[in-house]
C-alpha cells in the first residue's frame, strides 16, 4: 500500500540525512521526497511517499518519531487529504504536433513556461496519477526531459 507521510522536523544541517539514513539502513523504500521550510524558519516539513504493509508503515512512523530532531509524524492517509505534485516537461513541438501538444496541455490545465522553435516546456500540477497521465499522453509525441517534485500533501480541514 502506498502511504504519504508528513514529517515536521528541525531545520538543521544533517537532519535530512538522518531521515534518509533511517530508510536505507532499515530497508524501507522512498518513492518520493519533498522538503522545505515551514512558516517557522527553524522547522521544515518533509513529505514522503513510501510503500509497505501495515506493520512496515507502523515501524516507519515509530522510527521517524524516534529521531531526536523529528517533531511530528503524520500518516496523511489516515484522514481526508489533498495531494499535489508538479512536473516540468520538455516536449517535442514541431510544426505538425504543436497544436496537438497545446490541446493536451489545455486539457490538463497545464501552462507553457518556455518556448523554442522545436519544443515547449510545460508545467502541470495535480495528483501523482494526473501527472503520470500527462506524461503517458505526451510520451508518443516525444518527451525530451522531465523533472518531478514528488508529492506534497495536506490534511483537509474539518468540515464541521
Amino acid at each position, binding site marked *: 500500500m502506498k502511504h504519504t507521510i508528513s514529517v515536521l522536523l*528541525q531545520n538543521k*544541517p*544533517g537532519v535530512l*540525512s*538522518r531521515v534518509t*539514513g*533511517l530508510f536505507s*539502513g532499515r530497508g524501507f523504500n522512498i518513492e518520493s521526497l519533498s522538503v522545505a521550510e515551514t512558516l517557522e524558519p527553524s522547522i521544515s516539513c518533509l513529505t514522503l511517499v513510501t510503500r509497505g504493509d501495515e*506493520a512496515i508503515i*507502523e*515501524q516507519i512512523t*515509530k*522510527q521517524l*518519531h*524516534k529521531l*531526536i*530532531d*523529528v*517533531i511530528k509524524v503524520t500518516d496523511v492517509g489516515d484522514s481526508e487529504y489533498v495531494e499535489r505534485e508538479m512536473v516540468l516537461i520538455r516536449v517535442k513541438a514541431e510544426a505538425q504536433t504543436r497544436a496537438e501538444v497545446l490541446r493536451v496541455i489545455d486539457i490538463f490545465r497545464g501552462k507553457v513556461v518556455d518556448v523554442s522553435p522545436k519544443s515547449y516546456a510545460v508545467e502541470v500540477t495535480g495528483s501523482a496519477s494526473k501527472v503520470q497521465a500527462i506524461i503517458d499522453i505526451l510520451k508518443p509525441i516525444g518527451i525530451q526531459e522531465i523533472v518531478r517534485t514528488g508529492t506534497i500533501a495536506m490534511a483537509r480541514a474539518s468540515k464541521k
Partner: protein
Amino acid sequence: MEKISGSQAIIRCLQEEGVKIIFGFPGGAVIDLFDALMDSDITNVLVRHEQGAVHAADGLARVTGEVGVALLTSGPGATNGVTAIATAYMDSIPMVILTGQVPTPLIGNDAFQEVDIVGITRPCTKHNYLVKDVKDLVPTLREAFHIARTGRPGPVLVDLPKDIVAKMVDFTEKKPIRMQTYQPTYEPHPGQIEKACKKIIKAKNPVLYVGGGVILSNANEELTELARKLNIPVTMTLMGLGGFPGSDPLSMGMLGMHGSYAANMAVANSDLLIAVGARFDDRVTGRLDAFAPHATIIHIDIDPTSISKNVKVDIPIVADCKHALTAMNTWFNNASDFNRDQVAASHEPWRATIDEWTKKHPMSYHSEGEIIKPQYVVEMLDKLTNGDAIITTEVGQNQMWAAQFYKFNKPRQWATSGGLGTMGYGLPAAIGAKMAFPDKTVIDVAGDGSIQMNIQELATARQYKTPVKIAILNNNYLGMVRQWQELFYNKRYAGTVMEVTPDFVLLAKAYGAVGLRATKTSEVEAVIKEALATDNTVIMDFVIAREECVFPMVPAGKATTEMLLV
C-alpha cells in the same frame, strides 16, 4: 557572567553530571581538553587503543548505571571508537563520547585527521552533534547527557572542533532540560496495565521474559516482587541476566539459541508471555512463526519501535519497566476481585511441568577426567567468588558458557556485548568496571581468540593498578565459528584454527602482570584461588577440551524447541 575557555566549560559540564572517570586517547585536536583535564579532579585514563576507551566507559556504565564518558581525538581516533560506540548502541548503554574535530574553517577540506564522524556514527548513536558555535557548547553537552541517560538509553557523540574548544564562553547556569522533540514516555497507560493484569490472572501457563530493559531501569526488585507474588516462572535474555535472581526456583535461566531446555520449552508452551524490556531478538526467538505460538503477548518497553517490530504484540505497554511493573504490583495489591494465593497456586501444575523439563535436560556437560571442561571453569569461578563477582566476557563460546554456568543473582554484575557481539569487549569493559568498583572482584571470561583483539589494554590495567582477572578458555580455535563448522559445514574449519597463539603466561609477564596456567581439571581450583588472592592483573590460561561445543543449541532459523542437546 563568568567567561572561561571552551575546554574548561566542557570539564565543568562533566563535573555537573557527576563524571569522575573518563577514558581517552590524545591527539592534536584534543590537546586543549587533555591539558584542562590535568587541573581537574576527573581521572583521565589513558587507554592503549580508542576502542578500549569506549568499551571501558561502557563497562563502567553497565555496572554503575551512570553515563560512561570517552574522549577521542579526530580522524582515526574517532573511527577507532566506532565499533565500541555501535556496541553500546545495540545494548542501549548510556554514554557520551567526545571527539576532537579539525578547526571549523578546515571542516570539509580533507584536513589532516579529519573525518565526518557525525556522519559515520549517525546510525549507531542515539543522537550526535557537531558543535559549530561556542555559544552552543554548554547547552549541547547538557542535552547530550540528558538524551544518553533518559528514555531508552544510548550513546551520544559530541564532535568538538579545536577552535571552538579554544574560544572563551559564558558558563551559564544549568536549568532543567525540556526538549520539544524528545519526551520519552515513562508512565504506563492505566488501561493497558489493567488489561495486562486481568490477562495474567486468567493465564494457566504464564512466562516472564525479561530483557536488558529491566537492568537499565533498575526494575529488578519490582520484577522479583511480581514473579514471586503470582508464582510466575522467569526466563532472561543474555542482556537480562541478573534482572531476576538466577538461583531462585522460579528462574529458568536464559532462553534462546543457547538457552536452557526448560526456558525454551516453557515459552513454546506458554499461554501468556510477559515481555519486559526485551526486544524479541532473532537469537531469542529462533524461527518467528514457531515462537510462543499459543501465547497472548504483553510487551512492556520504553521504546515504541521495539513493540510489534518482530512479533505481533497483543497488549503493548509503552513505559519505563520500573514504572510499569510498579503499576502492575499496585494493581494486584489493590484489586479485590481475585485471590492472589489462588492464582499463585493455580500455576503449580505449570511449574511442575517446567521442573520436569529441567530434570530431563538440565544445564550440564560431560566431565572427561583431567581434560578441563570450560563449563567447569565457569562453575568454579562462580563457586570461588560466591557468585558475587562482576563478570565481563568476550564474544563466542566463552560468553555463552559464562552466561549458562555463572549464577547471576544481582543486576549490574554482568557486562557482555549482546546485540553487536563484539570480540575484544571484555578486557576494557572489565577495566572500566573495576575502576568503578575497586573493591569488587572483576573477571573477564575470554577466549584465546577474542582476548587478542584488545590485549593491549593489559598495559592500561597495569598503569592504573586495576587488578582485573582474565580467565582464558583456551582451545586454540575461534570456537563458536568452529562449532558451527562442525555441526553445519562438514567440519571444514576454514579460518578458525589459531595456529599461532601467544604464550599467555609469558605475555602477562611481559606486561608486568601475573600469568597462571592450568592444563588439568585438578589444577583449576588452585589457579583460580591464586588469581583471586593476587593483587595484580592476572591472566589464567585454561587449556580446555579443544572441541567442546555450547549446548543446548537452536540451529539458526529453527524453532526454539528444536534444540541440539548435550
